[in-house]
C-alpha cells in the first residue's frame, strides 16, 4: 500500500481531542511522581544507584532511582502523612512496578484448616515458610525441605510459572494456564506488588493509620466483594517505607472455599540485586536439564506429583 496522504480531516479532530485531554493533566503531579530515591530501603546506597544508572546491568528500578537524583538532586521526598490510603497504594504500586529486587521472608500461619468435609487439597503442603525475591511481577520462592533439598519455584518475565524439581528437571506453566492449581498456589506464595496493589485499588475498602514521621505508613484493606474467589485475601495490611513507598511488611488473610486458610506475612529483608536468570527456570537448572511444559501434560503431572511428595504433609495446626 502506498503511503497515506500526509493530512486527513480527522487528524485535526484527534489532535484537538488530545490537546483538550492534555490540558486536564497536572504536569507538576507527573513531575512529582518521578519517584523518591529508595534511600531508606536496606542494602542500597546512592552510590550503588549511580553505578546502576551508569549502565551496568541497569534495570528499571535503578533507572527510577537514578532519575530522581537527576531531576530532584536528591531532595527529600514529599510528606506522605497527608496522602490518602488509595494514594499510598498507588505509590506502592509504582514503587513495585520497577525492576528493583526485594527479598521478603515469608511466614505462613495455617491456623485455620479448611473444612473437614473437604479433603486437604494436594497442594496445601506448598504453603510453608520460605523466602521470596520479587521484581515487579516476577518472583522466585525458596523453602528448605526436611530432606535437605529445596522447594523452588517462580514466575518469569514472560508470566510463566515454573518449578525447579531437580537440577535436571523443571516444570513450566504457560501464562494461559491461569487455572492450573499448582500455578495458582505458586503465585499465592509470592508478593506480586503491581497485581496486589491493583486489586486493592479495585476491590478493597482502604483505610490508613496515623504514623509518626519516619515510621512505616500503614494501610489496611478489606475485601468488599462481590465475593472472594479461591484464595482471595479478605484482609490485607501493608506497612510502607515512608520514603520509597515500597512494602516493608504485608499481611494477607486468605480464604479458600469460603473458609479461612492461612495468614501470609511478607517481611522485607533486603533490597539487593538478583541476576535476571534467578527469575527464570533455566537459572535453577543444569544446562542440559529437561523442561516439561504444557505440551506433555502426563509427564508434567507425574513430575509434579513426585515434587509435591517431598513436602511434609500438612496437619491442621502445625507449621
Amino acid at each position, binding site marked *: 500500500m502506498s503511503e497515506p496522504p500526509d493530512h486527513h480531516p480527522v487528524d485535526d479532530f484527534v489532535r484537538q481531542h488530545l490537546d483538550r485531554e492534555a490540558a486536564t493533566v497536572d*504536569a507538576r503531579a507527573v513531575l512529582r511522581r518521578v519517584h523518591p530515591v529508595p534511600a531508606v530501603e536496606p542494602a542500597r546506597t546512592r552510590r550503588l544507584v549511580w553505578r546502576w544508572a551508569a549502565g551496568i546491568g541497569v534495570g528499571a528500578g535503578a533507572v527510577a532511582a*537514578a532519575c530522581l537524583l537527576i531531576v530532584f538532586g536528591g531532595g527529600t521526598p514529599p510528606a506522605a502523612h497527608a496522602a490518602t490510603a488509595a494514594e499510598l497504594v498507588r505509590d506502592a504500586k509504582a514503587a513495585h512496578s520497577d525492576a528493583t529486587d526485594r527479598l521478603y521472608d515469608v511466614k505462613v500461619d495455617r491456623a485455620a484448616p479448611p473444612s473437614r468435609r473437604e479433603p486437604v487439597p494436594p497442594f496445601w503442603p506448598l504453603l510453608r515458610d520460605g523466602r521470596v525475591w520479587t521484581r515487579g511481577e516476577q518472583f522466585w520462592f525458596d523453602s528448605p525441605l526436611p530432606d535437605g533439598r529445596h522447594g523452588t519455584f517462580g514466575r518469569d518475565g514472560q508470566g510463566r510459572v515454573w518449578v525447579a524439581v531437580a537440577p535436571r528437571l523443571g516444570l513450566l506453566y504457560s501464562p494461559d494456564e491461569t487455572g492450573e492449581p499448582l500455578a495458582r498456589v505458586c503465585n499465592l506464595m509470592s508478593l506480586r506488588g503491581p497485581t496486589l496493589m491493583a486489586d486493592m485499588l479495585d476491590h478493597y475498602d482502604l483505610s490508613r493509620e496515623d504514623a509518626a514521621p519516619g515510621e512505616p505508613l500503614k494501610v489496611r484493606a478489606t475485601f468488599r466483594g462481590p465475593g472472594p474467589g479461591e484464595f482471595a485475601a479478605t484482609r490485607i495490611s501493608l506497612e510502607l517505607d515512608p520514603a520509597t513507598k515500597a512494602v516493608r511488611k504485608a499481611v494477607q488473610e486468605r480464604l479458600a472455599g469460603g473458609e479461612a486458610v492461612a495468614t501470609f506475612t511478607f517481611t522485607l529483608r533486603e533490597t539487593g540485586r538478583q541476576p535476571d536468570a534467578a527469575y527464570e527456570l533455566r537459572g535453577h537448572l543444569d544446562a542440559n536439564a529437561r523442561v516439561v511444559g504444557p505440551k506433555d501434560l502426563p509427564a508434567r503431572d507425574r513430575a509434579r506429583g513426585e515434587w509435591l511428595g517431598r513436602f511434609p504433609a500438612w496437619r491442621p495446626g502445625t507449621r
Partner: protein
Amino acid sequence: MGDGGPSDDRGAWVLATAGRAVAYARSLLRDPHDAEDVVQDCYCRLLAKADVYDLPRDGAKLLMRSVTNACINRRVRRRPVFRLVRPVADGGDEVPDDPPDAAARPADEHAAGRELSVAVAAGLRRLPVQQRAALELKSLGHSQQEIADALGVSVTNAGVLVHRARVALASHLAPFLDADPAP
C-alpha cells in the same frame, strides 16, 4: 523543589511534555492510573539516559515512542497469570461497543466542541489499539517512519494502520465532517 516544580531544564522538559504524554497514554490504556504509571516509568528511563539523548530536540518523540511501546505491552502483549480477584471478562482493548464513561462526562457535553470531543473519544475507543496509536501519533506530527518505529511494524504497515484508523474514525465522525470540514 518542594512543590515538584522544575529544578533544571530536565524538570522543565517533563512539565512541557507531560500533558500530551499522559493524554496519549490514557487514550491507549483507558486507565488513568496505569497511564500515569507508564508515563512515569518512561520519563525515568529517558532521564536516566539524559546524557546520551538530546532531550530538548528529540525527547518528545522518544517519549511518545516509549509510551507507545509500554502501553501496547501492557494492554496487548501481557496477560496476568493470576489475580486475587478474577475480572468478569477479559475484553482486551478492542471492545467495539464499549460505551463511553457517562459518569466522566461534564454537564456541558452537549456544547458543540465538547460533543465533538466526546465523539472523537468514542470513535478512538472503537479502534484497535495499534490503529489508535498510529492515528494519534500521526495527528501529533510524527512521520510514517517514526510511527513504524514506535509500533514495531514496517513503514508500509504503519501506513495501513493510519489509513484504516482514519477511515473508521471518519465514518464515526461523519456528521461532524459533513457539517464542518476540517480547517
